[in-house]
């Protein structure tokens, strides 16, 4: 798999790495997610972005040993995640992974999304639920929407992508410098973010992962809201076709 023959751990050791966990009222699961990340790789600096929780998520995360970035009010997932990216860029991290606080993403699969990044084969690695392994299938409207988005995004970025709503991702410094400066707000932000990355010709790679069922068993989006955000994302993707890249990306060392 690797060119040098050394193990992933050895090649990771020289990289400053951070795990960004955006959280909104995830006090029940956040502690376990933090412990699991640390078990997989104690070298990760874990940063929880508390997006205005009122259930003590921040305190739980801090007690579990994570750094906590407390937003003064709810920004929505896009604005919250970007806070983590800005922290990562400002503090000189080489590699950032994004992991959901609800336990959906399995930290033991971190090596899967880190491997292509460390090998220098990609700037962004996305863990995809639909690229092979696993049995996860969304149902109904959600599934239709995900298929449509995947088709549109694949066309726009001229690369076949199967899961544009996955937020289980790994970024190198180059893509980090883009997302810290320019990142879509609101929900379904991963769709826009993928198009944005394509615009800047960042090398993207999907790797198959399995995801666990959402532990608290609820999606935060109602049907009217998801229709609104779908329309918003479609507009954003369309307009972005007519926009020129404005952010200067950092070069990989």
């Amino acid at each position, binding site marked *: 798999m690797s060119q040098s023959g050394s193990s992933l751990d050895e090649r990771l050791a020289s990289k400053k790495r951070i795990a960004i966990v955006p959280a909104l009222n995830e006090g029940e699961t956040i502690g376990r997610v933090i412990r699991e990340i640390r078990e997989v790789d104690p070298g990760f600096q874990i940063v929880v*972005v508390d997006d205005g929780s009122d259930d003590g998520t921040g305190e739980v995360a801090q007690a579990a040993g994570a*750094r*906590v*970035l*407390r*937003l*003064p*009010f709810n*920004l929505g997932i896009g*604005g919250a995640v*970007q*806070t983590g990216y*800005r*922290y990562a860029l*400002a503090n000189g991290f080489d590699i950032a992974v994004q992991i959901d606080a609800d336990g959906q993403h399995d930290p033991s699969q971190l090596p899967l999304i880190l491997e292509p990044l460390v090998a220098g084969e990609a700037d962004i690695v996305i863990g995809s639920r639909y690229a092979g392994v696993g049995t996860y299938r969304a149902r109904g409207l959600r599934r239709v929407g995900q298929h449509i988005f995947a088709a549109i995004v694949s066309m726009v970025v001229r690369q076949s992508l199967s899961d544009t709503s996955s937020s289980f991702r790994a970024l190198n410094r180059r893509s980090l410098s883009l997302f810290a400066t320019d990142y879509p*707000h609101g929900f379904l932000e991963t769709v826009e973010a993928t198009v944005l990355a394509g615009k800047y010709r960042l090398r993207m790679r999907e790797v198959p992962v399995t995801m666990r069922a959402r532990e608290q068993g609820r999606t935060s989006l109602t049907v009217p809201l998801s229709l609104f955000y779908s329309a918003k994302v479609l507009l954003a993707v369309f307009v972005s076709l007519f926009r020129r890249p404005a952010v200067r990306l950092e070069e990989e060392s």
Partner: protein
Amino acid sequence: MIPFRVAVVASIAAIVFLVVIFELIRSRRLQERYALLWLITGGVILILSVWRDALRLVAEQIGIAYPPSALFVVGFLFILVVLLHYSTVISELSERNVRLAQDIALIEERLRMYESRSEGEHAARA
């Protein structure tokens, strides 16, 4: 030609409108940069109400049979422009709002780190 009574009422309304805007600026409840569009709106309506020939010409050019309707059209267009302008202002404000909220979160975390570090130093000295 626009009926005289309509012209008088429209003129008075426009003048009252302009006075209200002026008062809002004077008492610093409205910034000049946002007042400008409103002042132009009121000014144009006032001019077209007083100068009835101009309104008739405008109405004829667009093909409106009843000149006072042209007053509505002009007013409506200006209000559209003002609202659109507000949408751009709101977009910019919400963008900055997000930025500031993120800055607060980042700075607050640094502050907490410094505080816990200096507490540790105090404890070590004591």
